[in-house]
């Protein structure tokens, strides 16, 4: 009944008492139960109904009051199963809520489920979680992936089950599936949102991400999530601006850079056409579009740099999974036996691969050649990006080379092709800059998006410009109708 409605639409219904939070929660839970895209790890039926029944008086000035949402299963939820879609955490029930979950609960939003992800957030296809493939609701044939690692959150939001979802983004895990699923996928500045309770993959890159179906909703949610949290000492103490109030204000910063070498790697004519059309639209709105250059050599190094650094960090961050303190306990007569069994059984093959690579990169004899060289290269990449953002306010690019690939096309294994078009979003993680994907067109009934990236802590400006872009495309609030049983 309420599927596909935006936060503000639902808020309107709640304020005018046409609907109650309990109605919304029940409706969302029903939609979740009928979801055939395998987007859910766990539906929080009892928890959601309990919360929705006890919200008290409506808060007219609080747009999130009573609004249902979903949580990517790599975020700690108190007393609710959290597995990170990995068997190594089967049965793990955390004793605490992640900061972002806490904030949304305090804002009286209603969590209705935990969504699937690529195992431990490592992956970009939405196929490696322990419950199997998560589907793209736009493709009724279920022949195309939804992307990852935030596959479940993307799928549930794209199916209209909830108006917003919590996700995470380490290499592009929110912003790429956003493109494949016709969503707004927002990754704010690194340190803008507390990572307390976000299971770490690569903390120097990890950021909480948000899915919505329009830019204004993204502003609403981000404003609630952002801010200093003393439990995450890396979180920024900078004051949080009023993203929501300012969203319709015309942004003063109007210089947009398009990176020539990246666009050149995109072969899909429909994507390029739609992209160019938006450029025209932006120009009409008074934006100045500058073509800038980045060396192809540097761009080709994006993926290997990302892979070395993230695998190295991931290896260390998952060394706590031994089945002893939490997770399924294996038996054995020595510590080595117990831990080896638990980790061998618990981790998927792709994860083990990444751990091997990560350990290899940090070994004494390889550290200089691999890890340190990657760190230095990251610095070089970031300097490059920041240089572009000296004379330009935003960088604007197609988010992905094309629409969601078919399963038969994609592979998450190590490949020799460092496709620049497929990996440029990681620039936002390397540099820690705010970056947002929004839909710009359709091809074969599948959506695709473009990505805007701004300067650190300039979320207000980035959201304002995204709002204008949304007006150019006219593609706010799209969702895949009827994608379930």
């Amino acid at each position, binding site marked *: 009944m309420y599927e596909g409605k935006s936060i503000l639409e639902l808020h309107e219904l709640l304020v005018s008492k046409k609907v109650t939070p309990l109605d919304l929660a029940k409706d969302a839970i029903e939609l979740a139960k009928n979801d055939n895209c395998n987007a859910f790890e766990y539906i929080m039926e009892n928890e959601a109904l309990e919360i929705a029944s006890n919200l008290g008086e409506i808060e007219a000035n609080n747009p999130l009051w009573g609004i249902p949402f979903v949580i990517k299963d790599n*975020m*700690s939820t108190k007393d609710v199963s*959290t597995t*990170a879609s990995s068997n190594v*955490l089967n049965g*793990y029930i*955390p*004793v*605490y809520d*992640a900061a972002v979950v806490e904030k949304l609960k305090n804002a009286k939003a209603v969590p209705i489920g935990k969504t699937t992800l690529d195992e431990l957030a490592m992956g970009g296809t939405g196929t490696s979680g322990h419950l199997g493939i998560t589907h793209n609701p736009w493709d009724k044939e279920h022949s195309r992936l939804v992307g990852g690692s935030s596959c479940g959150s993307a799928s549930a939001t794209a199916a209209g089950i909830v108006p917003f979802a919590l996700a995470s983004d380490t290499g592009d895990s929110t912003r790429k599936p956003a493109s494949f699923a016709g969503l707004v996928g927002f990754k704010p500045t690194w340190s803008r949102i507390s*990572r*307390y*309770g*976000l*299971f*770490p993959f*690569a*903390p*120097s890159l990890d950021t909480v991400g948000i899915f919505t179906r329009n830019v204004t909703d993204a502003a609403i949610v981000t404003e609630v999530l952002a801010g200093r949290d*003393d*439990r*995450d*000492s*890396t979180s920024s103490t900078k004051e949080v601006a009023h993203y929501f109030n300012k969203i319709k204000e015309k942004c003063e910063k109007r210089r947009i850079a398009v990176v020539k070498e990246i666009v050149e790697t995109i072969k899909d004519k429909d994507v390029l056409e739609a992209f160019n059309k938006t450029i025209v639209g932006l120009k009409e709105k008074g934006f100045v579009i500058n073509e800038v250059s980045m060396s192809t050599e540097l761009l080709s190094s994006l993926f290997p740099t990302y892979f070395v650094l993230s695998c*190295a*960090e991931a*290896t*260390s961050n*998952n*060394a*706590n999974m*031994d089945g*002893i*303190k*939490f997770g399924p306990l294996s038996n054995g007569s020595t*510590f*080595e036996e117990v*831990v080896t069994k638990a980790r061998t059984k618990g981790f998927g093959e792709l994860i083990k691969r990444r751990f091997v690579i990560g*350990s290899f990169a*940090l*070994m*004494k004899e390889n*550290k200089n050649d691999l*890890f340190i060289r990657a760190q230095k290269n990251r610095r070089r990449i970031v300097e490059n990006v920041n240089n572009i953002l000296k004379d330009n306010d935003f960088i604007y690019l197609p988010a992905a080379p094309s629409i969601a690939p078919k399963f038969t096309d994609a592979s998450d294994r190590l490949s020799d092709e460092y496709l620049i078009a497929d990996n440029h979003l990681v620039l936002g993680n390397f540099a820690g800059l705010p970056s947002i994907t929004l839909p710009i067109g359709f091809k074969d009934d599948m959506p695709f998006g473009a990505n805007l990236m701004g300067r650190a802590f300039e979320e207000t400006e980035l959201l304002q410009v995204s709002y204008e872009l949304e007006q150019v495309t006219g593609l706010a609030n799209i969702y895949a109708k009827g994608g379930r049983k």
Partner: protein
Amino acid sequence: MEFEPVIGLEIHVELKTKSKMFSNAPVAYGKEPNTLCAPLDMAFPGTLPTVNKEGVIYAIRVSNALHMSIDNELHFDRKNYFYSDLPKGFQITQDRRPIGKEGYLEIEVGGKVKRIGIERLHIEEDTCKQLHFPAFTLLNYNRAGVPLVEIVSKPELRSGEEAMKYVEKIRSIVVFSGVSDGKMEEGSLRVDTNVSIRPKGSNTFGTKVEVKNINSINYVQKAIDFEVARQAKIIEEGGTVIQETRRYDDKKNETVAMRLKTDAVDYRYYPETNITPIKLSDEFIENAIKSCPELAESKKKRYIEEHGLNNYDASLLVSEKAVSDYYDEATKHSKAYKLLANWINVDVASYLNKNIISINEFPMSPERLVGLVKLVESNEVNSNQAREIFAKMLQEGVEAKKAKEILGISSQISDMSFIKDAVNAVLAENPQAIIDYKEGKGRALGFLVGQIMKKTQGKINPKITSDVLLEELKKR
């Protein structure tokens, strides 16, 4: 062939901060297992470390006491390895930028002062405690995350004795600076050593053997002496020393092979990405240094130079922080330094030993002791009487004046004219004694004093009496 031992010490000191180094769980000893744990200490997914400021301040105190240069940025790294006592699978430590670098401490050997270089001091976190049983191992996470500083010396120690003195000095520093209990038996101070030997005069290093499980200060010397002798024997017999880790067995007084030490485990160090580098302002560092309580060395110097105590007395007072604190408190109320030192080092010490308690449990406050000392100082009582009063004070828990009253001790007479009269009276009654004294017969003086005591029923101050007596004898 004459060998020279080359010894380095790695000392881990547990800091007695209120909470752990990276979590807010409390730090306490001997509590029920697994009751002092925050989710981070058990490495629950998604938990994050936050830096304990007090721990940093403590580390700066010790670095400064060891004359080290202090880094003005705080950086942490991960030391990655798998072991049952390491919940996260890595330890947060400082690899690249230890907070303290290039310092030294001085020890006294054979009457000479020797300077031992200290390479680094860094902050890290402690591991779980393990209890091994035949069929299983129990893990207690109370200790996981407790702050540690690791102090690494340069290999400049040359004997077991020197090493023991180094450890004593470190212990004194960490206890007096208020940062640790420094108890080897409780594990708040742990010593590992690297021992090798080389021909005397050589500049190269022999094969290093690590020795662990040294549980008391005395064993430091014993373990090292044994190891040096063991290595010397091997080489003299034409063999080679194997690089390994050995365990000191204190019952047999020998080191036993534990495991082969392959050339350093690869810990795959890299920066701790959940703690961004922290700038330490000059002010912060200065305040940390200023906040340090007075160290033993400084107290001893002060006692000798300003209080006129001798080296022996001063050393005794600073052998235990609590004792020197007691003395310091007492000197706030009295300037009778020598008297106070004596009472504390002899009478108080004897009481503590007999009752097997520490001065912290001593039932007489420094002020009370001063009350007694004041009586002695003013010659109101003699030393025997003072001891009686002391005992009574402890027995009844009363102050000096009250105890004196209970005992019925009347004040010693110190009135000059009374004493003079008594002296002259006795001299008049014992002319032979005067002659004996003048003839150099030693016992005469004692006899005369005894007579005076008898006459005054012992109430006269003996010291003043003998002074007056000598004076009067001179006149005759």
